């Protein structure tokens, strides 16, 4: 299979699976209300998943620990968030700090 064929097959399979995953919850639950305990677990899910995504995307590269300028870039993002900056400046700030560090070292 050529690289282009692999890419197109991946796109097609991602589209089908993503559609199914997004559609499943609303269809399975229907109009029923979920219990308090289940609601509590669901309300905590984004915190667990987003933290997992942030950390792995920052310090893991190709299955290995890779601490580089990105970590400082994320530190800058955290500082901007703490100062109440809008998310667009958080994103641009993280990229700019990472780029400047790579330029300097």
């Amino acid at each position: 299979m050529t690289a282009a064929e692999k890419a197109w097959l991946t796109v097609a399979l991602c589209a089908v699976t993503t559609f199914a995953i997004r559609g499943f919850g609303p269809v399975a639950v229907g109009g029923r209300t979920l219990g308090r305990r289940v609601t509590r677990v669901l309300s905590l899910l984004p915190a667990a998943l987003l933290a997992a995504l942030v950390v792995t995307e920052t310090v893991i590269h190709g299955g290995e620990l890779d601490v580089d300028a990105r970590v400082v870039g994320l530190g800058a993002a955290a500082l901007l968030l703490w100062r109440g900056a809008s998310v667009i400046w958080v994103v641009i700030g993280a990229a700019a700090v990472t780029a400047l560090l790579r330029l300097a070292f």
Partner: protein
Amino acid sequence: MSVTSLRSSSTARAGARAAVPFAAAGFVVAISFGISARAAGMPAAAAIVMSAIVYAGAAQFAAVAILAQGGSVIAAVLAAVLMNGRYLAMGLALGPSLKGGRVRRAMEGQSVVDAAWAMANRGDGRFDRHTLFGSSALQYVTWLSGTIIGVIAGSALPDPEALGIDAVFPAFFLALLVGELRTAQASAVAVGGAIVAVVLGLLAPAGIGILAASLIALVGLRGARAGAEATA
């Protein structure tokens, strides 16, 4: 136009307005996706079609990263599925707030993306549909247009990492995460999830760590403590 539909379209517009910073940031993230996809050797059209019909940033980044490392199609799709596992949970939470029969619910569920879902969350277990739709629609437009620009830029840029492009995506998710840390319990869950994801990320195939991190949220099954009470 009836009073209800007037109200719902204004809620959707309010949702879109509230989503402007996220849509703008998503535009930058999408540019970084287009550049990464080109760097991974993906055809420009495939990257654009992916953003148009998959519309799930983390899954798209994960799949492209695996293809870039020479991984198989199965591995790439599996990583995307694991990344999207959170949409299963988000869809279950959203379910009671949607309307209509099975087909309509499945279609309405397609609007779920992280920022839109979080914004539509009223914090009492219910979601505002129109906020979700408005917010998601605006983010879709910037996600798709950003990808197109990224694909074009990616063909011209010699070294995207020199621009710090790879820091864009985690910074965006950090901003979403901060909005979720409303209670002490949520913060503890975030720390736990991060530790699990890093440890398994180093030991297990890509994506497993992220999914395992979601299990940390099961601490919510234990009786409502002070922190959890505020969320529920």
